[in-house]
């Protein structure tokens, strides 16, 4: 699924955005409604739970409203909104980690992360890949991926953003985005490809 809605051209939100920034409440309502489903979808994939995605997406919408006057239009509104949603999701993951019992195996960061003080989320092994819905399998697999890699893969494969846009959102070089997507997909491959088999050739891990 591609949530980006097309190539990088003129911002399709331009007129609505201008009206919203001018104080038009209806335009703001339209703008937020247009983007809310895809922002929630990103939050859902990044946090791995409906409740956390609800909180993250709501915080993102509020942050968008508050920051709207400072939006400079250098990026598309959708890209800017994604950045806010990603940050809100990472904040939500941090809060979840604080609420979690200390000493969980997932509390330690893993190598390959860019210094972000977040490790992968713990996942219940009671999940049966054979019987669970595919969406649960994807969520479970993504939760085991460090958030830096998770965000890059989700923004590319769910949102359909190009490397440059993802680099802007994650505030890292495009080369880093390319590397994270490649390595993130490779890490996920044993879980999500060919019926979760281990047939796919493995690569050395750090």
């Amino acid at each position, binding site marked *: 699924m591609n949530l980006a809605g097309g190539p990088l051209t003129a911002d399709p939100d331009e007129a609505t955005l201008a009206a919203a*920034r001018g*104080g038009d*409440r209806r335009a*703001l*309502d339209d703008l*937020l*409604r247009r983007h*809310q*489903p895809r922002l*929630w979808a990103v939050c*859902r*994939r990044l946090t791995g739970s*409906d409740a956390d*995605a*609800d909180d993250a*997406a*709501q915080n993102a*919408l*509020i942050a968008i*409203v*508050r*920051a*709207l*006057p400072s939006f400079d239009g250098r990026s598309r509104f959708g890209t800017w909104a994604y950045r806010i949603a990603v940050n809100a999701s990472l*904040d939500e993951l941090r*809060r979840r980690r604080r609420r979690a019992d200390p000493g969980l*195996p*997932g509390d330690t960061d*893993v190598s*390959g992360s860019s210094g972000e003080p977040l490790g992968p989320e*713990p*996942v*219940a*092994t*009671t999940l049966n890949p054979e019987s669970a819905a*595919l969406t649960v399998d*994807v*969520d479970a697999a993504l939760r*085991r*991926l*460090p958030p830096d890699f998770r965000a890059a*893969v989700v923004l590319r*494969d769910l949102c359909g953003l190009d490397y440059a846009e993802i680099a802007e959102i994650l505030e890292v070089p495009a080369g880093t985005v390319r*590397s994270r997507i*490649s*390595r993130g*997909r*490779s890490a*996920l*491959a044993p879980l*999500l*490809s*060919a019926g979760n088999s281990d*047939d*796919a050739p*493995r*690569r*050395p*891990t*750090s």
Partner: protein
Amino acid sequence: MTLEPPLPVPDDDSLDAATSALVDGVATPEEAALVAASPDGAARLAALQAVSEAVGRPGPAQDPAAADRALAAALAAFDTAALDTAGTDQAPGEEREDAPVLAPRVGSPGSVRWLPRLGAVAAALVLLVGLAVLTVDLLGRAGDPGTATSDDVAAAPTSPAAGRPGGTEGATAMARAEAAEVIDGGAFGNETAVEAIALRAGAAFDSPPVPSPAAATTLPADLQRCVKAGPSTVSEKVGAPLYQAEGTFQGIPAVAIAYQRDGDPPRLLLVLNRNDCSLLERTPF
């Protein structure tokens, strides 16, 4: 519940990088040739393509009620900002530094009735202050002529807000009237568990501290912002603030604010980052 370990993330690998670039349609001719020449190339391409398709499949849709709540909260933030900036040259969404402590959430029950009521309270307080000043002035003139003049009294600031941008006696009186409804929990030190702060707050509700004259002033601007922003940091609908305290939470300068909530327990404690009012932790109590 048992836990699975994190996925090991592979090192950078030229074949994987080339294959992933092929999946995204951005591979160079050299990368395409590398994949084509590799015995594993076709299998890797199929595997990474499958991952990309799996992650790209739409997940569950958001509960419509939750979506509506989120949208309503965002629009309420817009409305609040519009109210705050009414009569000023601020753009919608900008925070005003000296906003009243308990600025109402627009759209909340009774918010329209709330403003005239507070206005009346503020006017009454201003009138009382004026009468007191006049009385002191008259007594001063009678008992010690020359020590105070009406000009002196008129020129003296009557509140901490006087002289600040946007600070007026009415606004200060309003903030004082509002502050009187909130228990000032003082400082909670350096806490690492929200439950410990909730215990302190609960104790304060059991035996509220006696307010001192010094406490009946406007809160610092950053705390005002957090008191206002608190409800918007959670999806649960909360009511009026009841308690506030300052301290450090897990090494982060923080403010703890308790709000009314529907349900049992009847209060929700939010611990917010004092710098940006983001939510650090929450617990009902």
